[in-house]
């Protein structure tokens, strides 16, 4: 079962990448209100039950995928 992990920089952390994308877009006349750039991790797990897979993915995220000082994460079950 595949689980997606969306990791985004916290609001109070300066997101240098997001800022760079925003300013490039602006200079090309494609303005956006805001752009945040984070990470996306796709985990393919042996678990076949969504609940179990989400639990395991959550543990993996806590273990290593994100740093709570600067990031937040969300999980999503992906279609196969």
């Amino acid at each position: 079962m595949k689980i997606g992990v969306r990791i985004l920089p916290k609001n109070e952390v300066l997101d240098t990448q997001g800022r760079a994308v925003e300013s490039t877009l602006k200079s090309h006349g494609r303005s956006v209100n805001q752009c945040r750039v984070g990470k996306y991790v796709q985990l393919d797990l042996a678990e076949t039950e969504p609940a179990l897979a989400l639990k395991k993915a959550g543990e993996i995220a806590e273990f290593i995928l994100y740093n709570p000082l600067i990031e937040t994460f969300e999980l999503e079950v992906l279609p196969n």
Partner: protein
Amino acid sequence: MAQKPVGILRFLGTNCDRDVWQAVETLGLTPRWLWHEDTFHPADYSGFVVPGGFSYGDYLRCGALAAKAPAVQSLSEAAKKGQPILGICNGFQILCESGLLPGVLVRNEGRRFIDKWVKLKLRSSNAWTQSASVGRELNLPIAHGEGRFFLEADGIDRLFENNQVWCTYSDNPNGSLKDIAGISSPTGNVCGLMPHPERAVTTWMGSEDGRVILSNLLV
């Protein structure tokens, strides 16, 4: 009695390990490798250096993958016992990710890797700076893409109150909060530093200022 050896940690992707080895030898001390997969007895060593480089390619977040290694568990024991530990550049990032030091190092404000000589100021004494050198200016090279120190605001204030900010940039190259180049644990034995003291230990390297820090390994 000969001094105990200095332990140098090696992770997959560490690349300043030989440079630290060379600097430790230059000081007349005996270096020893500590392999990431192995635990060790802290008491067998006089101090530890976690060298810079790109452990695990800096993938995911720099230092994050290395922070989980068995050798880091032994390093935590050494930290608790009050032994001197210095993390340089990626080594600093590893110490932060493993929780041995507060905060985290994120991408430089200008997003690009920076290699240059910088002027630094030593601000407090700890296991890696003697009180005599507080206030001193140092000239050391930096080489990093992720050297901007970050911690939420009250955390930063506490670092200053506890004298844990021991080294700052005179001309901030990377947007680091409060010009921070190095911090220490509350007890002062665990220190992190973004610039590379091991790259400045002989005149032909361009500066000998790295000795001000590394010579504290001599007990």
